C-alpha cells in the first residue's frame, strides 16, 4: 500500500452524551479513489462526515488531510483546505437562485477586496464575470444549465441533489463527500448520477467518498468500501471482498435492519 494517503483518519471517536456514535474508526483514502461508506441506518456514517467537515466535535482520534490537521477545525477552515460535501437532507439556499447558490460557494477563491466590491472597481466586474462563468460551467457539468435562474427550492428533489453537487464543486475540492446522493432519485436519475460521479473522479481528478444505501450503485461504482456498524468499522476492502464478508452480511441481515 502506498503511503501517500490523502485522507487519514485514525481512532476517530464521536460521542453524543452516553452514545458513542463513532467508535475508534481508522481508515485512509488514496488520492483519486472513489470510495463508499456503507452500513445500516444509525451506524454513524453521517456522523463521520460531520466530524470530517468540522460540524460535530471529535471526542478522540485524529483526522489529517494531505499535510493539514483537520481535527476539530471550524467547518469553514476545513472547506478552505479543499474538503467539500453535500448533505443527506439537502441544504441548498432555497430562497436564492441556483446560480447564486453556486456563486456563494466560490467564496474561498474570491480575490477582490471589500473596497473593490463597495465601489465596484474594474477588478470587481472582471472577477464577478469569471465567477458567473465558473458557476455556469459547473451547472453544465451536472446537466442543469437551463435552471440557473430558478429558485433552488423550486426544483425537483433529484435536481436539487445535483445542484448541491455542483455547488460543492465550486470550491474546487480535492476531496468530495457525498451523503446519500441518490436518495429520492428515480432509476433513470440514479443512472445519470452514477455517470456524473465517475466523470467527476476521472475528469476533475478528485477523491470521492460517498454514503449510499443503494447496494447495486455502491458495488457498481466504488473501488473501495468501508462498512460501519454501531459506530465500529467492521470491514474494509473492494466490493467483491465486502460482498462475501461474513460480518457484513450479518450486520445487514441480522442487525437492526437497514
Amino acid at each position, binding site marked *: 500500500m502506498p503511503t501517500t494517503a490523502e485522507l487519514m483518519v485514525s481512532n476517530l471517536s464521536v460521542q453524543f452524551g452516553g452514545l458513542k456514535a463513532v467508535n475508534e474508526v481508522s481508515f485512509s483514502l488514496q488520492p483519486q479513489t472513489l470510495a463508499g461508506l456503507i452500513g445500516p441506518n444509525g451506524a454513524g456514517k453521517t456522523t463521520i462526515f460531520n466530524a470530517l*467537515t*468540522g*460540524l460535530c466535535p471529535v471526542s478522540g482520534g485524529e483526522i489529517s488531510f494531505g499535510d493539514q490537521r483537520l481535527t476539530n477545525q*471550524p*467547518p*469553514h477552515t476545513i*472547506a*478552505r483546505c479543499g474538503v*467539500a*460535501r453535500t*448533505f443527506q437532507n439537502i*441544504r*441548498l*439556499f*432555497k*430562497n*436564492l437562485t441556483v446560480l*447564486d447558490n453556486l*456563486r*456563494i*460557494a*466560490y*467564496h*474561498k477563491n*474570491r480575490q*477582490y477586496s*471589500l473596497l473593490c*466590491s*463597495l*465601489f*465596484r472597481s474594474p477588478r*470587481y466586474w472582471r472577477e*464577478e464575470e469569471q*465567477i458567473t462563468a465558473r458557476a455556469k460551467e459547473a451547472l453544465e457539468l451536472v446537466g442543469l444549465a437551463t435552471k440557473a435562474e430558478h429558485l433552488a427550492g423550486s426544483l425537483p428533489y433529484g435536481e436539487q441533489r445535483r445542484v448541491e453537487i455542483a*455547488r*460543492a464543486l*465550486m*470550491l474546487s475540492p480535492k476531496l468530495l463527500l457525498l451523503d446519500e446522493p441518490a436518495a429520492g432519485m428515480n432509476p433513470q436519475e440514479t443512472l445519470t448520477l452514477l455517470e456524473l460521479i465517475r466523470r467527476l473522479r476521472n475528469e476533475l481528478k478528485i477523491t470521492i467518498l460517498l454514503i449510499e444505501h443503494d447496494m447495486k450503485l455502491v458495488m457498481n461504482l466504488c473501488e473501495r468500501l468501508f462498512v460501519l456498524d454501531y459506530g465500529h468499522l467492521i470491514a474494509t476492502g473492494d466490493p467483491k471482498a465486502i460482498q462475501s464478508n461474513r460480518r457484513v452480511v450479518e450486520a445487514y441481515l441480522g442487525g437492526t435492519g437497514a
Partner: protein
Amino acid sequence: MVKPRLTGLIKIILLLCIYGVVRLLESRGLLLPYHVQVLSLCCINVILVVSLNLINGFTGQFSIGHAGFLAIGAYLSAFLTVKMHVPFLAAILCGGLLAGLAGLAVGLPALRLRGDYLAIATLGFGEIIRVIILNMEAVGGAKGFSGIPKYTTFGIAYLTAIITVVVIRNFVHSDYGRACLAVREDEIAAESLGVNSTYFKVLAFALGAFFAGTAGALFSHYLQYMAPTPSQIGFVKSIDILIMLVLGGLGSLTGSVIAAVVLTIIPELLRGFAEYRMIIYPILLIVVMLYLPAGLMAGRELSLDSLARLCKGVKSSAHYS
C-alpha cells in the same frame, strides 16, 4: 433587458431630477422650508432603514438596538462641531466611524447569540448607550445637547442617502453580500462552503452601524437639539426604524427606501389629527402586515428592468385589447 450602462445613466438622471424638482419647487415657494425639512428627515430615515436591512434583512440577524448607533453618531458629531469646531463632513465621518467601531465591539460577543437572545442583547446595548449619554455632562447630560448648528441641508442628506443605498447595494451584490445571504439562509451550509459566519455577521453589523452613525450625525445637525429620551435615541426610535424595515420588506432595498419615505411623511400629514394619529398609524401597519406579511416588496426589488417590463406588458395588452 436594459443595458447596465444605460440603466446606470438613467438612474443618475432620475436622481438629479428629483433634486432639481425639490430645489425648483422650493425656490418658487411651492415647498415651504418645513416641507424640505421633512424631506431631509426622509433621507435620514432611508439611511437608518437601509443600514438596518443589511443586518436584519440580508444577514438574518435580529438587532433592535439600531438607535444606539444613531446616538453615537449624533452626539459625537455634535460634540465635534460645537466644541471642537470640526468641519461638518469630517464630523459625519467620525460619527460613522465611532458607531462602526461600537458595532464591532458589540457584534463580536453579541453575535454568538441567536434570535431572541440577540434581540435582547442589542436592545440592552441601545439602552446602555442612552444611559451613558444621559450621564455625560460634556454633551449636556439629562438636559440634552442644545445649540447644535443647522448644518444638515436637504442636499447633504440626499447625497448621503444615495451613497448609503449605492454602497449597500454594491455590498449585497458582491461575494461579501452573498456570504451574508448564505449565513441568513443556512449557517451550517454556509460554513461548509468556506464562509466564516461569525466574520460576516460582525462585518454586516459594523457596516450597518457605520451608516447608522452617519445618519445620526445628520440627525443631530437637523434637529439642532438632542435629548437622551427613548423616542429620540432609545428603544422607541429603534422600534420605529424596525417597523419601517419590516413594512418595506426584509431583504429589499427599494422596499426600505419606499417605506422610510412613506412612513416619515404619513405621521407629518397626520399632524393635524394629532389625537387620532396614534390610532390611524397602527391600524395602517396592521392592515399592511395582514395583507403583505412579507412587507411591501417581499424581498424583491423595484428596478428599471421590472418597470420596463411592466410598461411593455401594459402596452402589449393594450394592443391586443
